[in-house]
C-alpha cells in the first residue's frame, strides 16, 4: 500500500511541476503493483484531481476497472469515470491512448451491465473528441459510442458524429462496426442516402477474412437501396475484396430473391415472397425495413406512371399500381408529393391527378451558392488526392518496387533510378 501512496505523491508532485514524461516512466514501472492492488484502489482516486493529474488518474482508473466487475462495483465506478472523461486534459491522455481507450470500453461495459446506455452517451462523445488526433481520425471508441446511441435510441447525437468524413483508421474492425452502426443510425433518421454510403463502405472494404459484419451490412444495404433508389444492383463493384465477392451472395439469399422480385414490379409476388421468408427477416431484425420496402414498391410504380402520363385518374392509378381503392391511391400520391418524390396536383372534383415537371429552374441565388460550395468542396478533395499521390510517389518502398519491376528494352532505358534502394 505504501508503494501506492508514494506513487500518489509522485503523481501529485510531478504533475504540478509539469514533468509529465518522468511521471510516465514511473507509472509504467508501477504497472504491476497497481494491478495487484486493483480492488483497493478506488478510495485512492479521491486524493487525485482528474484535471491536473490526468495521466496518473488514468493509470489508477485503468487498474481499477480491469478484471471482472460486479454490478455494485460497476455503478460505483461509472460516475468517477464519467467525471474523469469530462475533465481530463487531452495532452496527458494522448501519451497513453490505448489505456484511455480500454478505460472507456470498460465504461461502456459497465453502463450496459447497468442497462442504462443513455448515461454513457455524453461521456463517450467527449472521450472521442479528446482522443481524436483530427476530425478525420477514426478511433476505437467510435463504434462503442454509436452502439450506445443505438441502444439508447439517441439517434440525433449519433448522427452528428457521422457528419465527419473519415480518412484515417486505426483498426479495420473499428471501421466495419462504425459504418454498420452508423448505417443503422442513418436508417433510424431516415437519411437513406448516407446509410447507403456507409453500408457500401463496409461491403466493399478490403478484407482478408470474411466476417459477419459484412454479411449483415450487405443485407441492410440491399433493403436500403430498394427503399431509396427503387432499384438494386446485383453485381458488387470491382474493387470489392475477393472473399466478399465469392461468399456474400450465399449468405444473403432471401434478400437477393426479394430484390429480384421487387424489380419485376408485381406487388402480389413481393408480398408472397415476404411471407415466405418472414422468419428469416425477423431473426435478422430486418422486418421493419422489409415492410418499408413493400410500401416503397407502390411509390416506385407510381413514379413510373409520371413518365408516361400527364394526367391520370385516381382510379386508374389504383388499378395499374394494384392498390385496393382510389382513396388509397390518393393517400400514396399525397405522401409522395409531400416528400418531394414527385411533382403533381390532385383535383379532387374529377378525381384526376396532373403530373408536373420538376419546377426547379436552377436560376436562384440559393442554387448558385449550392453549386459554388460543391465546386469548392470537390476542389479540396482533389487537392487532397493529389497530395496523397505525391506522398506515395516519393515513398522509398514504392520507388524500390517500381524500380525492380521496370522493363528494360535497350541501353537508353538504363537511367538514374537504381534497382534497389539501400537506406
Amino acid at each position: 500500500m505504501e508503494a501506492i501512496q508514494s506513487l500518489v505523491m509522485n503523481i501529485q508532485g510531478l504533475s504540478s511541476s509539469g514533468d509529465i514524461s518522468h511521471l510516465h516512466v514511473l507509472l509504467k514501472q508501477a504497472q504491476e503493483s497497481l494491478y495487484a492492488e486493483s480492488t483497493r484502489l478506488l478510495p485512492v482516486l479521491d486524493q487525485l484531481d482528474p484535471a491536473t493529474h490526468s495521466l496518473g488518474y488514468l493509470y489508477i482508473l485503468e487498474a481499477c476497472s480491469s478484471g471482472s466487475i460486479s454490478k455494485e462495483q460497476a455503478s460505483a465506478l461509472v460516475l468517477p469515470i464519467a467525471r474523469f472523461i469530462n475533465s481530463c486534459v487531452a495532452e496527458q491522455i494522448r501519451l497513453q491512448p490505448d489505456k484511455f481507450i480500454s478505460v472507456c470500453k470498460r465504461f461502456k461495459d459497465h453502463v450496459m451491465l447497468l442497462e442504462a446506455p443513455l448515461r454513457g452517451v455524453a461521456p463517450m462523445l467527449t472521450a472521442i473528441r479528446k482522443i481524436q488526433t483530427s476530425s478525420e481520425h477514426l478511433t476505437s471508441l467510435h463504434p462503442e459510442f454509436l452502439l450506445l446511441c443505438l441502444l439508447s435510441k439517441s439517434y440525433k447525437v449519433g448522427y452528428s458524429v457521422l457528419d465527419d468524413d473519415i480518412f484515417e483508421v486505426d483498426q479495420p474492425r473499428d471501421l466495419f462496426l462504425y459504418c454498420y452502426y452508423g448505417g443503422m443510425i442513418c436508417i433510424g433518421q431516415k437519411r437513406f442516402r448516407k446509410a447507403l454510403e456507409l453500408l457500401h463502405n463496409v461491403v466493399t472494404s478490403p478484407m482478408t477474412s470474411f466476417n459477419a459484419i459484412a454479411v449483415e451490412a450487405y443485407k441492410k444495404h440491399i433493403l436500403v437501396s430498394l427503399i431509396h433508389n427503387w432499384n438494386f444492383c446485383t453485381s458488387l463493384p470491382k474493387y470489392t475484396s475477393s472473399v466478399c465477392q465469392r461468399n456474400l451472395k450465399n449468405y444473403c439469399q432471401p434478400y437477393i430473391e426479394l430484390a429480384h422480385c421487387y424489380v419485376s414490379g408485381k406487388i402480389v409476388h413481393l408480398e408472397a415472397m415476404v411471407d415466405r421468408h418472414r422468419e428469416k427477416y425477423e431473426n435478422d431484425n430486418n422486418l421493419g425495413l422489409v415492410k418499408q420496402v413493400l410500401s416503397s414498391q407502390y411509390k416506385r410504380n407510381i413514379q413510373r406512371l409520371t413518365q408516361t402520363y400527364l394526367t391520370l385518374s385516381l382510379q386508374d392509378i389504383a388499378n395499374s399500381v394494384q392498390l385496393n381503392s382510389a382513396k388509397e391511391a390518393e393517400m400514396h400520391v399525397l405522401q409522395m408529393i409531400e416528400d418531394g418524390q414527385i411533382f403533381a396536383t390532385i383535383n379532387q372534383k374529377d378525381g384526376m391527378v396532373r403530373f408536373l415537371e420538376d419546377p426547379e429552374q436552377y436560376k436562384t441565388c440559393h442554387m448558385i451558392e449550392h453549386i459554388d460550395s460543391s465546386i469548392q468542396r470537390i476542389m479540396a478533395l482533389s487537392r487532397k488526392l493529389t497530395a496523397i499521390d505525391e506522398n506515395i510517389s516519393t515513398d522509398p518502398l514504392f520507388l524500390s518496387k517500381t524500380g525492380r519491376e521496370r522493363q528494360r528494352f535497350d541501353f537508353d532505358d538504363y537511367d538514374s533510378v537504381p534497382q534497389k534502394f539501400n537506406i
Partner: protein
Amino acid sequence: MEGDDDTSGPMIDDEIYANGVDGDNEKRSRPIMSSEQLDIEAYASLYSGRTKIMRLLFIAQRSQSNEAMELEALRMAYDEIKKGENTQLHREVVQKIVGRLGPEYGMDVAWCDTVDRRAEQKKEKLENELNAYRTNLIKESIRMGYNDFGDFYYAHGQLGDAFKSYVRTRDYCTTSKHIVHMCISSTLVSIEMGQFTHVTSYITKAEQIPDALDPVTVAKLRCAAGLAHLESKKYKLAARKFLETGPELGNHYNEVIAPQDVATYGGLCALATFDRMELKNKVIDNLNFRNFLELVPEVRELINDFYSSHYASCLDYLGNLKANLLLDIHLHDHLETLYGQIRHKALIQYTHPFVSVDLHMMANAFKTDVSGLEKELEALITDNQVQARIDSHNKVLYARHADQRNATFQRVLQTGNEFDRDVKSMLLRVNLIKHEHNLRSSRKH
C-alpha cells in the same frame, strides 16, 4: 391467293398495270382482298420435290380444325409421295389419313415392298460401283459415286446419310463448279433437316469461290441465306438477303422456295426492321425486287400503304394474310413477332410528326379502341421509343422533349455528388490497405 396469281399470270399483270396508269383513284377503289382460304393445289404447284410434301403435311397438321382442307392436303401429299420413293413418309401420311379418304388412299403394302426391294438393289449397285471407283482412284468417278449416293438417300428420306455423302464429295472436287454443286446440295439437305447453321457455313463456302458464279446460283444462295437468317430471328439481315435476290431466280429453286415466298418474307421482314429511308431505297425503289412483289400484290400494297401512312388499310392487309401465312412452314413461328414489330413501327411513325395527337382519331386510324391504344402507347413510351406523354383525362398524346438545360444541371450536380462519395471511399480504402500493408511488414520484421 399466291397460287391464283401464278396460274393466271398475264391477266393479273394487265390488271396491275391498268391500275397504276389510271392513278390514285383506282388504287383507293380497288377492293381489299378477302381472306380466302388457301388454294392448296395452286399453292402446292409452286413447289417440287420433298419440300412440296413437307409443306402439304404441315398444312394438314395446322388445319386440323378445317377437315376439308386437311384431307385435301393429305390427299395431295399421298399422291406426291407415291411418285417418289420414300416409304417412311408413305407410312406417316397413311397414319394421318386414318382411312378417311377411302380405300385407294390406304396403306399400299405391295408398293412399299417393291420400292424397298428396288432400293436395296440400287444401294448394292451403287456401293459396288463406288468401291470399284475407289480402288481405281479416279477422282471424278468417286465424286459422282458419292453424289449418286447422296441423291439416293435423299430420295429415300435418309437425310443424315444424304448430308454425309454430299459432304464427302468435297475431297474429290476439282473444279469450282463441283464445289458449288456440293454446296447447293448440302444446303438443300440442311434446310430440309432444319439445321441452319450448316446452311450458313455452306453458303459462305460457296460465296468464297473466286470464279464468278452464274446469276441463278447467286440468287439461290441469297435465298438460302435469307432463310437461315429468318430462322435465327435476324430479320434485318434476312430482309437484306431476300431483297438482294435477283429476278433470275424464277422457278429454279422450287425445291426450296418459291418467288412468292421471297417477296412475302422479304417484304414483311423489311417492313418490320427497316427505317423509312431504307424502306424507300431498298424496297420501294428496288427494280429487281419489284418483279417479285408483282407476284404478291397484297404485300406490295401493304408496303406502299405503310409508307404513305394509310395504316388502317395496311393493317387490314396484314390481317387478311395472317391466316394463310400461318400455314407457311418457315414463317409461322415468326409471324407474331413480325406483326408486332410492324404495328409498333406504325404507331411510332404516326405520332412522330405531331406535337399533340387526339387519341380518338388515332384509335380510328388503327381500328382499335382508346383504352387498348393507351396500353400500347404506354408500353412504347416506357420503352423510350415514343417521346410523349398521355393526358388520360382528355385522351390526348402530347409530345415531350426533355429540357436540356435542366437535365444538364441535374446531371452535373449528381456527378459531383458521386465523385465526392467515390473519392472519399477510395481514400478510406487506400488507408485500410496501407494499414494492412504496415501490419504485414511489421509482422515480417
